[in-house]
């Protein structure tokens, strides 16, 4: 039971990184300027790297799982536990950066608190991932300001992106019995604490960027239960293609 809960907990972090990493990799060769193309693919590399380490560890925890590739590429849709937020389409650059900012702001506090986990692996992982997340956060939060207070057109694009993406942010703070069990052992993080800090920071930053906070919010929490948006099937078709076509293939 204990192992199962830790497995599920790590899988959620890993799937968020994996799917967001894939989404960001779609920008490769399409960035608005060369530097931004490189930045977005660097982000993607970091997220896929995080997922790789976490899936490796998951494979060690489960006796019937051979390796990280099996977890990454051969699960069914309902077995992926990522947030809807990270599977949303990239949209334009404004939408990608806004999704990134909301997620980075969550991750920076999440990894910061997880750095004190009583689980040795999670503690070491969080301390390591926090360093690169700080660079992500700096980058995405600067873009929010730059575009928000840039021109009337860039502001309009950011506002549209915010109206679309913000309503998916509630799910970041979803907790169930897995979280409660691990919080009680000082392994997991109490997301309610992060929610308070996150909301305050995000509202302040978006307001500074001349953006209006939309009031509409979703109240469904489905990603962690393996239910996904209509976009997810297309992502899986892409990422699973090689393993499904050539089973057990390796680079």
């Amino acid at each position, binding site marked *: 039971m204990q192992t199962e809960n830790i497995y599920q907990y790590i899988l959620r972090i890993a799937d968020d990184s994996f799917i967001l990493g894939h989404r960001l990799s779609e920008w490769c060769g399409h960035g608005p300027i060369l*530097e*931004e193309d*490189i*930045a977005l693919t*660097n*982000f993607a*590399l*970091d*997220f*896929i*790297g*995080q997922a*790789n*380490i976490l899936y490796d560890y998951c494979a060690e925890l489960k006796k019937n799982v051979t390796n990280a590739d099996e977890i990454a590429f051969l699960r069914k849709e309902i077995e992926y536990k990522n947030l809807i937020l990270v599977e949303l389409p990239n949209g334009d650059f404004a939408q990608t950066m806004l999704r990134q900012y909301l997620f980075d702001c969550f991750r920076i506090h999440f990894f910061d608190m997880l750095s004190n986990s009583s689980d*040795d*692996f999670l503690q*070491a*992982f969080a*301390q*390591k*991932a926090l*360093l*690169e997340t700080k*660079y992500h956060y*700096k*980058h995405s939060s600067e873009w929010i300001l730059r575009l928000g207070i840039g021109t009337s057109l860039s502001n309009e694009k950011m506002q549209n992106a915010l109206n679309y993406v913000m309503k998916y942010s509630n799910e970041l703070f979803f907790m169930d019995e897995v979280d409660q069990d691990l919080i009680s052992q000082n392994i997991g993080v109490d997301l309610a604490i992060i929610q308070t800090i996150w909301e305050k920071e995000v509202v302040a930053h978006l307001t500074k960027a001349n953006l209006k906070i939309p009031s509409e919010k979703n109240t469904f929490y489905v990603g962690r239960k393996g239910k996904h948006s209509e976009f997810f099937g297309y992502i899986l078709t892409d990422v699973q293609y090689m393993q499904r076509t050539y089973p057990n293939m390796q680079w």
Partner: protein
Amino acid sequence: MVVIEDIWKELEEVKDPEIPVLSIVDLGIVSSVQLDSTRIVVQIIPTYTSCPAMNVIKNEITKLLSEIGEVEVKIVLSPKWTSDLITEKGKKILKEYGISPPNSDFNQEVECPRCNSKDTFLVSNFGSTACKAHYKCKQCLEPFDYFKCHK
């Protein structure tokens, strides 16, 4: 008779594939070496979680040391790698190679590796590899890579 110092010396032959002048010892990613009669255990720590060079480095170490004895290379997350673990020699090598070595704190000015001017500006925090940022010197106008402060 092989002693631990010999192993460390051998490891200086293994270079970071993305910065081929810099040894993994000077990069600070060899966290420990254990020698037990003929069995060698080397622990290495990744610079970034996403460092794609780790497996290449692991294979290189195994290939090199298997001439001495049985080798096991472990990639571990702890201790945490920071840019402060790069040796002084390593920083000198980076600079000669044209990469500005990492500062020990985020607020220090980045120095141009060619003309030593501190009159430089950040082009992008994300460069040719995960560990580097892209800068330009205002004095000699050369663009250059900066090995990011990471701690």
